[in-house]
């Protein structure tokens, strides 16, 4: 499997080059690849049907327990077959749909990458390799939605999808981490056996919330649904593949996969049922308001995803069976309908329902596919959708809680599904009308075959449920429920309540269809309400984020050096205060008063000279005076160094001070005279800060000096300076021998400063000289 995945990635990155070579036949290698994957996965079917599971492990990052492990059971096989099967058709379809597009190579790159990632999600046996593939699907979806990169709407929609699913992804990461801590393992197979441990953990609720956030954003549950309709900016093959059949179902897969681990509690049940129920009703409601084909399909998809989540939430065996059947049925008919929409768009150039009618004559093959899919969607008898709907009602009737509410939800959604089915399967193609929409060109087989195949599959599954679907679905249900399942799908259950409900749904749907145009007149009103919905909130938060970020940054990074320095100094003072607050050794000033007497008269004179000098420095308006004072202070410092036994330092200080003064004088005439730049309010503030800072440094110094230093270094250097260092001047010996590396660094600094001064003065690039 890992070879297939690697091959897929390689193939994906070869796509642009392949397009360069193969031109319009580019679809071939990719279709073949998808087919190869499908065939490879099919070889597992017999084994899985006998109840085996397979797992393969490849160590990748064992130090973090993240490995590429694959696990084949009914559930993962069902999903992976769905993905690769769809992949074959979509790869074929895309070749026709985007024929001649200059970016087709990149399109295949992203699409193949997506397919590989999606397979990775459903086959991973390690929750973090699952997560990695999960994020990859988000990324490839981002690139695919933004495929028409020069359209602003496409770019915005892509970003929206990325941000919403990305934030969900981050929540999921946190959730999986917590799950890993609670369950003590990242291996799915191990976690599946530790459900009780996880549910008993105190981390269960946060983990649940985070994982649900991930799943809900991915599967477009209310209120995170809004990215999905916008994502319809993507080319139709993408919408069909990612945004109806596979990627949005990754969330469902995750929920189903984790249901043995995390499911079964009330928190799980209620949150899933609530989110799913609201989404289902909301989706169909919104679908009714739209006349854009893809928007219509997108909202019904949202609704269907809501149903799937609800069913997963119920958690009982019939509900999960219904979930799996409905998932398969939905994938088949919704995929078809998307492709149909793409064909219509391709042939006529529009997707607006109001402008489309009577297409059946020119596009009868597409029409046939649409009708079959619509029948399945409506849940009409021989189609697979019928079985799905039957099971749905069955599940609602057998639900332990909220049965009635669920029934209502299912009924409403079912009804609108019927309506939509009528619109698409009948209204678009076969309804008699005077002016048929002109069809610009005929469709090649690569465009009409895939929807036909899918629609036929829907029929075949419906007609022969026992052979085609039951065994695998049974194993899949077993994977979710962790117990042996024996259920049999049959087309005909006989006359019972459920059948009655089905019929009622059909009738109600037809009635709604008849009045659908009138119902649509609510659209402006709904739009008004929906304008303040999550999509609006999203935009608001983006705008708010940008505005807030700009404001905050403008305040913090305000360009005034003095403010920066003030903040830095205040930070230092705060930190030092924190360190010394309640700290044990405090300054014992009183007991050290005697040291005050330890002053010689010439030292005192020096000190007393400096204070007026400092004051003068602050007050003077003359530059020359201030330089002179600076020099004087420097020389005084040199005197101090001499007084306290540091002749080398004193000499250096003396010479350097001289040089600084010379340097100053040299540039002095270049600088203008002082101006008063600081207001008196600022002045007072600065004086306070400076005084406190100076005081703090004094305090720190006195505090540290309170403890006599016990330096081994002094003793060692004193003893060995001459014997080993061969010099009487210990300071010099330290500089050139004991710590010569410091001196090496120091002279490097000097050298660089010289180069710098040279360069800064000599090299003055104007506006024109750009790098």
């Amino acid at each position, binding site marked *: 499997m890992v070879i297939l995945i690697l091959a897929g990635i390689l193939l994906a990155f070869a796509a642009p080059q392949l397009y360069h070579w193969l031109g319009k036949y580019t679809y071939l290698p990719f279709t073949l690849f998808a087919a190869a994957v499908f065939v490879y996965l099919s070889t597992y079917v017999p084994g899985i049907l006998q109840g085996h599971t397979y797992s393969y492990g490849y*160590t*990748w990052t*064992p*130090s*973090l327990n*993240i490995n590429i492990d694959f696990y084949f059971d009914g559930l993962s096989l069902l999903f992976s077959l769905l993905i690769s099967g769809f992949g074959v058709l979509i790869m074929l379809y895309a070749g026709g749909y985007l024929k001649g597009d200059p970016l087709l190579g*990149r399109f295949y790159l992203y699409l193949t990458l997506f397919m590989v990632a999606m397979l990775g999600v459903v086959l991973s046996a390690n929750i973090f390799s699952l997560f990695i593939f999960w*994020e990859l699907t988000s*990324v490839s979806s981002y690139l695919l939605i933004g495929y028409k*990169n*020069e359209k602003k709407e496409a*770019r915005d929609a892509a970003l929206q999808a*990325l941000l919403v699913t990305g*934030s969900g992804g*981050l*929540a999921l*990461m946190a959730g999986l*981490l917590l799950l890993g*801590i609670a369950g003590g393992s990242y291996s799915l197979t191990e976690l599946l056996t530790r459900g009780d441990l996880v549910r008993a953990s105190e981390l269960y609720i946060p983990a649940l919330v985070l994982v649900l956030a991930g799943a809900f954003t991915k599967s477009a549950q209310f209120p995170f649904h809004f990215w999905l309709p916008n994502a319809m900016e993507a080319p139709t093959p993408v919408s069909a593949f990612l945004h109806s059949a596979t990627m949005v179902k990754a969330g469902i897969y995750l929920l189903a996969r984790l249901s043995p681990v995390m499911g079964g509690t009330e928190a799980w049940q209620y949150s899933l049922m609530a989110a799913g129920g609201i989404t289902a009703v909301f989706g169909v409601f919104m679908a009714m308001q739209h006349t854009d084909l893809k928007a219509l399909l997108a909202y019904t998809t949202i609704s269907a995803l809501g149903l799937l989540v609800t069913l997963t939430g119920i958690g009982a065996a019939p509900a999960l069976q219904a979930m799996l059947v409905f998932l398969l049925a939905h994938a088949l008919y919704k995929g078809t309908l998307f492709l149909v929409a793409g064909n219509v768009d391709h042939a006529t150039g529009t997707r607006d329902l109001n402008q489309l009618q009577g297409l059946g004559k020119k596009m009868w093959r597409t029409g046939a596919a649409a009708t079959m899919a619509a029948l399945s969607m409506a849940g009409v008898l021989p189609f697979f959708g019928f079985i799905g709907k039957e099971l749905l009602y069955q599940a609602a009737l057998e639900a332990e809680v909220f049965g009635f509410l669920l029934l209502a939800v299912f009924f409403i959604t079912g009804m609108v599904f019927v309506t939509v089915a009528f619109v698409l399967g009948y209204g678009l193609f076969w309804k008699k009308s005077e002016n048929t929409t002109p069809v610009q060109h005929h469709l090649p087989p690569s465009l009409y075959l895939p929807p036909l195949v899918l629609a036929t599959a829907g029929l075949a599954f419906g007609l022969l449920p026992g052979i085609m679907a039951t065994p695998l679905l049974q194993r899949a249900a077993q994977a979710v429920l962790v117990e042996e399942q024996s259920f049999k799908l049959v087309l005909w259950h006989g006359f019972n309540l459920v059948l009655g409900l089905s019929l009622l749904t059909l009738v109600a749907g037809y009635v709604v269809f008849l009045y659908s145009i009138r119902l649509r007149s609510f659209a402006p009103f709904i739009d008004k309400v929906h304008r303040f919905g999550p999509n609006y909130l999203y935009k608001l938060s983006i705008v708010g984020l*940008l505005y807030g970020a700009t404001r*905050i*940054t403008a305040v*913090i*990074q305000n360009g005034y*050096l003095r403010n920066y*320095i003030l*903040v*830095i100094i205040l*930070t230092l003072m705060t*930190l*030092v205060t*924190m*360190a010394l607050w309640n*700290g*044990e*050794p405090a300054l014992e000033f009183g007991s050290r008063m005697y040291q005050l007497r330890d002053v010689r008269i010439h030292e005192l004179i020096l000190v007393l000279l400096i204070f007026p000098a400092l004051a003068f420095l602050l007050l003077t308006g003359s530059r020359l005076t201030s330089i002179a004072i600076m020099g004087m202070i420097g020389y005084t410092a040199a005197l101090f160094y001499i007084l306290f036994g540091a002749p080398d330092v004193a000499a250096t200080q003396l010479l350097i001070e001289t040089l600084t003064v010379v340097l100053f004088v040299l540039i002095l005439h270049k600088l203008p005279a002082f101006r008063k730049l600081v207001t008196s309010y600022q002045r007072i503030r600065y004086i306070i800060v400076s005084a406190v800072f100076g005081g703090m440094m004094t305090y720190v110094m006195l505090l*540290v*000096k309170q*403890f006599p*230093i*016990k330096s081994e*270094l002094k003793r060692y*250097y004193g003893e060995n300076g001459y014997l080993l260092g061969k010099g009487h001047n210990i300071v010099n010996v330290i500089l050139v021998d*004991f*710590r010569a590396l*410091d001196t090496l*660094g*120091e002279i*490097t*600094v000097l050298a*660089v*400063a010289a*180069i*710098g001064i040279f*360069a*800064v003065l000599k*090299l003055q*690039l104007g506006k024109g*000289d750009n*790098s």
Partner: protein
Amino acid sequence: MIQLLLVLPLLVPLYGAILCLFCWRKLQVQMAIGVVTQLGLLTSSIFLLQVVNKQGIVTTQVGNWPAPFGITLVADLFSCLMLVVSAVVGVSVFLFSLRGLDVKRMDFGYYPLLLLLQLGVSGVCLTGDIFNLFVWFEVLLICCFVLIALGGKKNQLEGAIKYVTINFLASGFLLTGTGIVYGLLGSLNLAELALLVRSAEAHPSLVTLAAMFFLVALGIKAAIFPLFFWLPASYHTPPIPISAFIAGLITKVGVYALVRLFTLVFVLELELMLPILTYVAGFTMVIGVLGAASQVDFRRILAFHIISQIGYMIMGLALYTPLALAGCIYFVVHNILVKTNLFLISGVVAHRHRTFALRKLGGIYLKQPTLALLFIISAFSLAGIPPLSGFWGKFMLAKAGFETGSYGIVATSLGVSLLTIFSMTKIWNEVFWKKKPETTEDEIETKVEKYENRLLHLPVVFLVLFILVLGLGAESFIQFTLKAADQLLNTDIYINAVLKDVK
């Protein structure tokens, strides 16, 4: 042998710089010397890494003076990793500047300055002495000063003034801190300091006081909140090779020093320090990423992002578990590579389009698909999209955070990573996807320019390869970082390695 290996990362760039100075007027020769030096530096650091990986921490006593009396050079895994990464970055920046920098700047000592900057970085990473650390920091800083001001354009000078002033204060605090440490403990050797601090006689609150000075000084150099102001003011002003190198590497050297000191010496009163660091980390992340979101200039977005990423590294330090420190180390290495690369990419873009302003750029997705691919790999890596390199760092930090129960900082870090995606896609949107605005004149590309453009791609590809290896083959590298974190936390290993001759 080890004595040689340990000083090679210092001597190779030093001698390279000296030779470059001798050949001041001959640019071609300087370039040749530079290439040899860079490769030599890379090889010697890789050798050193191998040796350290095999033998554990290695030391050399410069001048053959026993440990606490001379200056010790110490190489553990963390410092070796830093050396290797800085050498890798050095090679790529060097390759880039062969074609991506104007001749006038090269004439004024660009190459020797670059090499001396690398000398400073190597020095900081290898030194085992607190004052020597200060010296190497100054070497590195003055090179940065000169490089940022090199060329003397208006905004460069403006940036340089702020950079110089604030970093001068930082150096002052560093020196003050060193003075306090010496005044309290009477030693400068890090290993001996580590011993002394743990002895009963040390006053925790006074050592913490010194730690605060170091926190502020190194925090300024590492650009943590609220000390980062110089960074957004200056990093986007010099030409690309310079800002790429400085932006990629220098702040992380500050982080390195913080990690080194706060795991080795300043380990008292952790119950005070760690919460401070945690808050600092959180604010650094958030403010940095908000700043990036507010910018509309390719380079400025990247510059502000540095701050936000520094937050992650500080978070690793603040969590203070082996895994968190490993995450921090991983993040440092990853970030150096990715950040440099993004800066270089912005340089490639600007080389052709002559601007960094988002509104003037566009359409590169169609015209330069390779560059688009290289960018998106780096950008998604920075944003932490798995399985690219940023993810692993993020993952390790988040895991460590959950294990220690620091949910707040983990939530912040994850939220920030979403905003990182946001601002990276902003660049992608504007520079790559958007159609190029018609108002700006279309660039005319001669054959020579096309060839130059190809050459500029080289270092980017080189770095992307490293990023990919770092992400996809994360295992061996994560083992490295775990081992390095282990060395950091088990200070006895360090102390014994340095002071083995004394006992």
